[in-house]
């Protein structure tokens, strides 16, 4: 009987604690990132060579193009609160802190960050691509991310493709294939072994910083941050790129390329994700924040 009383008391106090919390603001809540992949203001519709539905874009150099596939990797997500304090979201864990955006799979366009500490956030930072130390196709370390999409593996380089764009361009709908990824060689976790010659071109990872149009007030609310990725930038960003027919004898398929000169990966990368210095937004912008 004594014991029963004890238990009753205990459970009562537990209930009391729980109900107390209910009245307070939770210590953490979710934040949803929603990606809208567009050409300008128009959300991209994918399509094959002769698709009537696909969203067609015209580059600044006047080249018509549309996509049949569009994927990219977002990692290293950090939220910065109104006091300037950065909250890193599982930044060293691809299984719990990275995601592959795939335009053909609507469910991948949203990524839920869980347990974000209650605060007003004014800025978001993330990476397009995978930092070199994690870019190893290590299935033992990150089995979930590794198996999420095998087609985004860059097997020969044992790294990930950071962006993978397939599509068609020009009046005759010639195929275009633009893949980006890092080619630093050496050991991922040992910077001294990297090939640092022209490292800006070889390291395709870029850090993006976006100021939120209105604060994301995490607490009672679980805000949604809508991020626009305007793929008009791919050919018409800082670098104005004209896609070319392969020169005699040379083609460049999986290489990030203007088809005839595969050395231009960095132009695509900088267009999409900025140069990490004077341009830290690239094609990304905040559409709005829903609290």
């Amino acid at each position, binding site marked *: 009987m004594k014991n029963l009383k004890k238990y009753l008391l205990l459970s009562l106090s537990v209930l009391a604690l729980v109900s107390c919390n209910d009245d307070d603001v939770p210590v953490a809540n979710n934040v949803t990132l929603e990606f809208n992949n567009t050409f300008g203001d128009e959300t991209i519709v994918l399509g094959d060579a002769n698709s009537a539905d696909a969203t067609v874009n015209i580059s600044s150099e006047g080249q018509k193009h549309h996509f049949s596939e569009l994927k990219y990797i977002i990692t290293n997500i950090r939220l910065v609160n109104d006091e300037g304090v950065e909250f890193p979201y599982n930044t060293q864990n691809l299984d719990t802190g990275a995601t592959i955006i795939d335009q053909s799979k609507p469910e991948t366009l949203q990524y839920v960050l869980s347990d974000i500490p209650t605060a007003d956030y004014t800025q978001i930072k993330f990476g397009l691509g995978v930092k070199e130390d994690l870019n190893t196709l290590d299935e033992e370390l990150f089995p979930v991310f590794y198996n999420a999409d095998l087609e985004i593996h860059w097997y020969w*380089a*044992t790294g990930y493709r950071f962006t993978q764009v397939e599509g068609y361009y020009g009046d005759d709908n010639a195929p275009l294939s633009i893949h980006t990824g890092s*080619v630093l060689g050496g050991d991922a976790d040992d910077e001294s072994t990297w090939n640092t010659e022209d490292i800006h071109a070889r390291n395709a990872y870029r850090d993006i910083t976006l100021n939120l149009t209105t604060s994301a007030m995490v607490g009672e609310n679980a805000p949604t941050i809508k991020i626009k990725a305007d793929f008009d930038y791919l050919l018409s960003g800082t670098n104005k790129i004209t896609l070319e027919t392969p020169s005699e004898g040379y083609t460049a398929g999986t290489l990030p390329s203007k088809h005839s000169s595969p050395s231009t990966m960095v132009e695509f990368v900088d267009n999409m994700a900025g140069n990490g210095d004077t341009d830290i937004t690239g094609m990304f912008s905040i559409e709005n924040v829903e609290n």
Partner: protein
Amino acid sequence: MKKLIPNIFIVLLVSSCSNEAIYESFIFDNPEIELSIPIDFPVLNNSFYTNKPTKYGIELGEKLFFDKKLSRDNSISCASCHIPENAFADHNSKGIGIDGRVGLRNPPPIQNMAFMQVYNWEGSKSKLENQPLVPIITPEEMDASILDIIEKIEQDDDYIELFKKTFGDDDITGDRIYKSIAQYEYTLISANSKYDRVQNENDTFTESEAQGYQTFQEKCISCHSTALFTDQSYRNIGFPINPDNEETGRTRVSLNSDDLMRFRVPSLRNIEYTAPYGSFGQFATLEEVLDYLDNGVLEADNLDPILKDNNNRIPLSEEEKSNLIAFMKTLSDTEFIGLQ
């Protein structure tokens, strides 16, 4: 509570007993194996020093190298494309993976790897330990997953025993698999050809071989230099271009268009056994290679100056060709490929 304490003791006793039993029966002793390093060979790759071949590491690596469990459907092993009697090269023009899938390039021989600073036709890897994962996961090769492989080989008691003997415990990891395979490959040293014996004054060239060696020194040695018969540089020598649009040569690693269709100069050791030749097996025979160089190669902006300055060819008389081939056959190491 009173009852609990003796129980805990019993558990502790049991566990300490079994621990002792394990340690008593297993003494970890895996000595490094001294390789005989040919004196005139180039310097060792630095990674060799961080993963020196050991008695059981080599044994484990060899078992893995020949094990078809490394492919997704257990149909091919490393040795399926790297055939020992072909100096660990392939007879197919391009590597053929599971389900008959055709790869991008001609599988290169695996020999004298410890002395190479870069691996693969375009030099995509600079550490041998980083190489095995590439064929393991490439869809046109083994199309496997390292976690699946680990699960498969964990079923095999011989492997558990070998991992324990190699690393001190039976933890099977990808890193340990890659390291063991590299250790085995480091032991594949070919340095006992007729050419080597002639250098050591234990043999003499025939008339034809001697003349071939003369021509070699005049027309080939600027690229096929050192005791490995490669200077390990990347060059475009205007060979027919791989129709696979994935192929750009060294460019895919350097991202530099100056490197388009540049490939690492291949070693000529055991060349008699490594047909077909060229990055995607363009040439069935050595005669075809020499005829092509004699007739003239493809023009390219970055064609090697040695060819460019010579009307895009290496002129060779029929006699020079047959003598060159006689010389190249003195680079055959019958012991290495298991004919002796």
